[in-house]
């Protein structure tokens, strides 16, 4: 019972926090420099991990799907099927989860330690709104950078797919590209791109919320980082579920 109540309180607090991000973003005096710095850090921090997992996913998926498609005699469809799976689901979700693990936990720990060591209070006293300087810039950075990372990850996955194909058979690059883009439509590309903005917003908001609300004591820094990853990952799956329902209703599946 108390678990349910604390879950409800937490959900309410998190929504209030997200609403505050929206309320504070359009106010004058936006921290552009800090936003650019955060975008760079966020991208830089997660690109190596995102890139290598994307490559492996593309290759593994190709090699595993090949026998099944062979038995149906549709091996030529392999590039399109892999590309569709990656662009629609695997790219956004895997990248989002890695992003939550890498960037979300980083934000949770960073803001958590700033809260615990009174650095956030110090900003407030120094005449800089810490919510705008720290939270708004980080949430904006994750919201803008995750879609970009997903596009890069999709491209790397397809490279992995191309190499995977060429292990057992021979496909030229122009043919491979043609095989993919002959079938790829707006509805394959656009809805997944939209949902990645929500994933990015969710990772940034949850990380900042957990860090900003860290209580006194160093152990709460670790707790903030850990909970940021768990909650953000859960929310990514929930958002994914909502997204598929919405695109289904709109006839975009």
């Amino acid at each position, binding site marked *: 019972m108390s678990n349910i109540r604390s879950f409800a309180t937490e959900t309410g607090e998190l929504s209030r926090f997200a609403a505050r991000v929206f309320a504070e973003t359009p106010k004058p005096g936006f921290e552009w420099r800090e936003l650019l710095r955060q975008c760079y850090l966020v991208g830089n921090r997660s690109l190596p991990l995102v890139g290598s997992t994307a490559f492996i996913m593309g290759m593994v998926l190709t090699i595993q799907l090949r026998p099944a498609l062979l038995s149906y005699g549709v091996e030529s469809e392999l590039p399109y099927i892999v590309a569709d799976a990656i662009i629609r689901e695997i790219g956004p979700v895997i990248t989002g989860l890695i992003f939550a693990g890498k960037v979300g936990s980083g934000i949770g720990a960073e803001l958590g330690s700033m809260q615990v060591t009174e650095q956030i*209070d110090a900003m407030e006293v*120094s005449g*800089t709104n810490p919510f705008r300087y720290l939270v708004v810039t980080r949430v904006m950075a994750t919201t803008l950078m995750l879609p970009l990372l997903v596009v890069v990850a999709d491209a790397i996955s397809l490279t992995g797919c191309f190499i995977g194909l060429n292990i057992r058979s021979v496909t030229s690059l122009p043919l491979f590209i043609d095989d993919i883009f002959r079938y790829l439509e707006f509805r394959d590309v656009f809805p997944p791109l939209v949902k990645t903005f929500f994933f990015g917003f969710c990772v940034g908001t949850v990380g900042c919320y957990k860090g900003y609300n860290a209580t006194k004591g160093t152990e709460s820094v670790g707790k903030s980082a850990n909970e940021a990853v768990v909650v953000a990952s859960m929310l990514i799956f929930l958002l994914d579920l909502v997204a598929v329902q919405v695109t289904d209703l709109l006839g975009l599946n």
Partner: protein
Amino acid sequence: MKVRDKTYDLNEPVIRIRDLHLAFGTHKVLDGFDLTLHKREDLAVLGKSGSGKSVLIKCIIGLLQPDSGSIEVLGNDVSDIEHHALDQVRARVGFLFQSNALYDSMTVRENLEFPLRRHWIQLTPEESEAMVMEALGNVGLAETVDLMPSELSGGMRKRIALARTLIPDHGPRPHHEPGDQRPHGGDIREVPHQLHHHIPRHEMRGTNLRKRGRAAQRQVPRHGDRG
């Protein structure tokens, strides 16, 4: 805890606190606290750890909202003031955090520049650099300007935090004479006293060390230290 400050001065008060109450849940930390601090006066608030010195000081600076009571700082009621005015009051009050609260992702220079970001302080890069170097010189640590806080010793960090606290106080300094001896080296406890000759400011410290408290001109005991 109920402490009344008995020494009254006819001078204009810098801080005037009346009947301050603040409780965290059922834990009453401040229970009818009164205090008056006059110009050019040093005041130390004494008390056991956990008696509410930091909470009091955070109320004065507007980081915590009291449940009731009034706090006037430089003639402004900080618990009922709009944000810009509060910010201007804060710029005139030096606040040193117990944990120093240096920004550990920023260099010493960026730490000191941070309070100068206030939108009404319009400085050229040269002016701001000069102020940073002067503030660092005042605590005898000019050479640390490009270091990160993690590269400094505990005592150095305390001094940098002090320099960052003093930097927005960029009004006229009548007691500052260019030929003055700058404080250099020595114990951190001496630095505020040395600075006193350069920068007239009203100093109020929360401390639980009687030794440090004696250095102040007047002491306000918190409960446990009374009598």
